[in-house]
């Protein structure tokens, strides 16, 4: 079940703080992070059958999740994209 909007907001803030520590330039904004969090959060509730239809059976799970990240966050580094998944799992686990 998808997180509440409040929980998704907390996850997006976590992502921004981790992605842009002091000394780095913020190249995405909060809305970008929130959209990515919402997309990956929703993707976690898709059945495997639906996922195979959508992305094909030859795609790894992590790449299938990454493919759900909308622009412009999908142009970020691999670590920045993985951070979205990390935040969503932590959010669902109540850690954020």
């Amino acid at each position, binding site marked *: 079940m998808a997180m509440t909007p409040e929980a998704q907001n907390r996850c997006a*803030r976590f992502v921004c703080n981790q992605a842009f520590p*002091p000394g780095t330039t913020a*190249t995405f*904004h*909060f809305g970008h*992070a929130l959209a990515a969090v919402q997309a990956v959060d929703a993707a976690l509730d898709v059945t495997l059958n639906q996922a195979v239809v959508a992305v094909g059976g030859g795609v790894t799970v992590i790449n299938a999740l990454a493919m759900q990240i909308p622009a412009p966050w999908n142009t970020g580094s691999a670590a920045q994209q993985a951070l979205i998944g990390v935040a969503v799992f932590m959010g669902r686990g109540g850690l954020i």
Partner: protein
Amino acid sequence: MSGGPIFPSSVFVNQTNGSIFPNFFAGGPGGQGANAVTNQAPHDEGLGVMASLSGVSTFDLRFIVPPTVPSGTMKLRTLALANATTGAGVITVLAANVSGGGNPSLVTLTSQAQFTVAWTSGLAGMYLETKTTFNFTPAGSDVIVMAFQPNGSGWTQAAVSTWIPTLIWE
């Protein structure tokens, strides 16, 4: 004759959750860390706002008007700094003027123009200037009582930002 700038004579961080704070912008981009490339004076002191702000936070500000009010229109001139190439910050301003003998904590503050500062490519570390007018005119030696409120509604800036408010007349 135009006048100012006048900096706040008093700044109080009227928030305890860490969303706003006194801050020094460290210069940027490239102005922080081991690979810093800056001049000899890269830092700017100002009002700090956390990244990805939510809710409304308030800086309590006071500005003292000169005995002779400069000619022209009084404006709030704000410079904003952030190491970012995207995102926006929203500032809500409430203010009133209080004369000597008045009670600054009881005066009714009225809403002034809300403004948004947007960062785009090439604007990281640059002074972003905003000027807004007031809906009242102070007399000489009045004190401007102001609630300077970073507003989480519409705040998308994902980096810490630093804000420098002054009064000018022009």
